């Protein structure tokens, strides 16, 4: 088993005016390749913050994060961006699609940003559209889609570049339970069939059960 994500002595403090709010306190966490981990905990406990730090969307106050053995804090913006598009796929609670791009274009974003040609990924796109069940909707814009469909576009976008890691922040938090189940099943399939390492933040016990491991966060500390 190789460690995909290694966080050691991770601390994060936010300045709220003059007050320092310690959101994450000395976190140590290792997630291995092929794991499907669910981070759980009460609202405001720092789950999203942890996930964003892992994805390099924010910097820790102290401590280190290694992704596939590489230290994040020493990376330049360029390297970090490359890592985000090649090694990590993000899925957010509110989908976060680009409104003026259609389904296909949204999915292809990481490819485009990587300076590759869309047409070289035709087959790949077909396959992923099939996988998430949006072949028919490929030319629609996000606002013409339902929440579940938008979330599936977001997942497809996270998958297109074949990253090893998928980070999902409450992926079904905004969906009804039927759609939620579909999305969870999709993530599980990706974890099992493709062997992707998945870390999700979730509130629901059921959602956590699709995973292989649960990490509980309380008051900025991990209590597994």
């Amino acid at each position, binding site marked *: 088993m190789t460690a995909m994500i290694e966080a050691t002595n991770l601390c994060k403090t936010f300045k709220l005016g003059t007050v320092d709010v310690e959101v994450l306190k000395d976190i140590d966490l290792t997630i291995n390749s092929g794991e499907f981990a669910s981070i759980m905990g009460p609202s405001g406990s720092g789950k999203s913050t942890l996930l964003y730090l892992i994805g390099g*969307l924010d910097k820790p106050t102290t401590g280190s994060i290694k992704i596939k053995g590489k230290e994040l804090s020493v990376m330049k913006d360029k390297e970090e961006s490359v890592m985000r598009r090649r090694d990590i796929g993000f899925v*957010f609670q509110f989908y976060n699609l680009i409104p003026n791009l259609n389904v296909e274009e949204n999915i292809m974003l990481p490819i485009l940003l990587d300076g590759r040609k869309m047409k070289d990924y035709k087959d790949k796109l077909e396959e992923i559209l099939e996988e998430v069940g949006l072949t028919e909707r490929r030319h629609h814009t996000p606002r013409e889609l339902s929440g579940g469909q938008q979330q599936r576009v977001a997942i497809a976008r996270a998958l297109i570049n074949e990253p090893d890691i998928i980070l999902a922040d409450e992926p079904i938090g905004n969906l009804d339970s039927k759609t939620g189940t579909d999305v969870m099943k999709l993530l599980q399939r990706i974890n099992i069939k493709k062997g992707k390492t998945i870390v999700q933040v979730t509130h629901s016990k059921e959602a956590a059960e699709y995973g292989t491991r649960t990490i509980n966060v309380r008051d900025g500390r991990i209590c597994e």
Partner: protein
Amino acid sequence: MNIIIKFLLKNIKEKKLRTALILFSITISAALFFASSATTDSMVKMYTDQIKKFYGESEIIIEAKDTAPSRYFNPTLPQEYKSHLQYSVGLFSGTGIYKYKRSGAKDENVSINLRGIDWKDQQIISKVTLASEFEVDPFQGKKIVISKKTADKYGLEIGKTLELMIEGTKYKFLISGIAQMTGPFTDDGRSHFAIVPMEILSSIYDQKGNVSTIYIKTLNSVEKQWIIKGLTASMKKQHVRETISQSDLQEQTGGVTVALSMALVLVLFMSVFIIYTSFKVITTERLPVIGTFRSIGATRKVTDFVLLGESVAYGVIGGLLGSGLGIGILYLIAKATTPTWDPGYKTSVQFTSAQLITSFLMAVILSLLSSLIPILKVSRIPVKEIVLNKIEKNQKGSKIWKPILGIIFLLAAFFVPPVAKGDPGILMDTVCTLLSIAAVILLLPYLVRGFVAVFERLYIYIFGNEGVLAVKNLRNNKNLLNNVSLLAIGISSLLMINTVTRSSVTEIINYFDTCMKYQMFFWVPEMDKSYEPILKAVDGIKGAKGFYSANGIEVKGTDKKIDSLESANKDFYMDYIDITLDGSKEATLKKLEQLENERSIIITGVVRNKLGVKEGDSITLKMPAGDRTYKIIAIWDSMMMGGNYAAIAEKYLKQDMQSKYYSYFAIKSDKNPEELLLFLKDKFARNLANGQTMKEIKDMVVESNSQIFNVMNAFSVITILIGVFGVLNNLIISFIERKRSLAVFRSVGMNKKQIVKMIFIESMTGGLIGGIVGVAAGLIMINIMKHMLTQVIATIPMNYSITMLTISATIGVIIMVTASISPAMKSSKLNIIESIKYE
């Protein structure tokens, strides 16, 4: 009610930049509106002031007619009018030559215009302030008051004598006064002026008791016209006229007024667009709250009232600021239009409180009208739809009437101006200018779609994937449409005004450089054919021909005048003036020959338009010999003598104008004209020679025109400035709206450089589209202006180069790219998480 107003005030304060933008455009509009309406008044005042320096408060001036046997006449006025006058003052004009001895150089003959007048009479018409005096009182005998300029230039001192040659005899005058450069001594930059006692001058000329001019002020100015009529009837050999006539004023200010209103129209259009689009945003923003207010019982009237109140508030504040700024701008325009070649003109501003109030009201109405449509639209939406957030669907479908209307406007802009004639034609052309911009704005969504499709294909090769993404971001982008509109309006105005003004200057220069085939005008009083061989004998003179000319000839049955009527002698006219009629030299010569056969006339296009006549028509001119009818045999498209020009055969001009002498000699020379003119002036000083080189006239005309052109260009720069401000505002709004999208780009792996690149490609593309559309609109407007100028002045070939068009389009790119520097930097420094989270 209170809470709604509080909410609005809070909103206004929050959107500082937008509030500033709206206020800025209203303020500028009000200011320019005020300035251009008051400019005419100020110019009138300036012109009147200038004239008053010489005439004082005099309203009527009487001089001998050109045809009279002598310049001098008996000043006795018919008894019946005397009791109606406040004063009537006679004066006696003459000329003296002062030989200025320069050590080591040739003597210079300085000609001094002498005014013979009683000292107290002079003080009645216009006050003379003396810098120093010596026995000036009593003002009798051979005393002279010279100007400070004359004294300084030739080292003349008070109490010394000044020797003048008058009528061939030398006289010694006592310099008993040196006058400040005010009143009649106001410097005209060219000549010297001095006052001597009336009696002494008239007796030197052997005209004791006679005068050359009478100045009159009436007791009751209402009677002015009646008095002029009466005096004209009884004084057959004299010309009785107003010192300042309405048509003179018109002539002085007409061009400026037309130019300013045209420029103003463009600025106003820009403002209307900015206010309209801002209010579209404002009403959509306020929609949810308005819905809430209405759902809890506020009537439609109340919410309408509040929105309208906001727009009125902008209008009131903008109107107040604008009135203040307007006075400043008025002063600047006045400064720019003050003739600098004549130091007698003093910059002065003139406006009425009515004009201030009108501008203020204009600001309020401008704001109200521009915001009315968006406000009414919102007002019509049922509360239920607002609360349920259903409106978006209503606005989605693009309306078919927009492109259709756009195309109709465009066609009108193309096809109406060529057929629009006369005064209504000018109005129609102005409307067409507006229609062409309106058409551009209506058709813009379709144009932009086309551009985007093209760029999408190109950019993959030029800029790679970031280019493709940038173009995709521009699809159906309202913000882009706004920016492109703003740029297009600004750039088209700039291009149009710049082209028109430059072409006009070029045309003027061209006229002097090519149309006039001689280098100077030269005249002395009572010149006849005998001067021709004398002049030709002068070294450096290649040719000299006498021309007869008359000014301000009234056309019977109209209130129009022909400014300049000249003799066209078929034997040499074409050698001196480059004229082509009906396309060929032969045809032109034929026409000139035709002039001799019967009373016929060649008029310029300007005169044709002014009189509304065509070739083959006849016009009757009021001439000293009586009313004479001339047949129009040719129309000449030329800026000759400013455009208001006509030519008739020499023999008819002599007969009908009763002219005995040439008005001037046209002189061809291969020597430096300035030197030659100096030489001639000196040589013929005894004969009171005078002249002007073509270059002097050209410089003066170019300068007087370039000043008003500068003002117009300033207007177009202001239009662009408002546009830039609008673009900046839009980009900031767009940045705020896009923060989330930008954070998403970052989260899926876009690096900082890529973000900056993408944003710059977007703005560059937007700028390019704005530039191209602006240039296209500008070309349409230039075409309209060409037709309009043909109506007002003359056919002026519009010259614009590819370079100029490219620069104009590039201005769009530069504006957009510069304006997006700050958003681009902010985007790259964006905190991803903060922007991605829903608050």
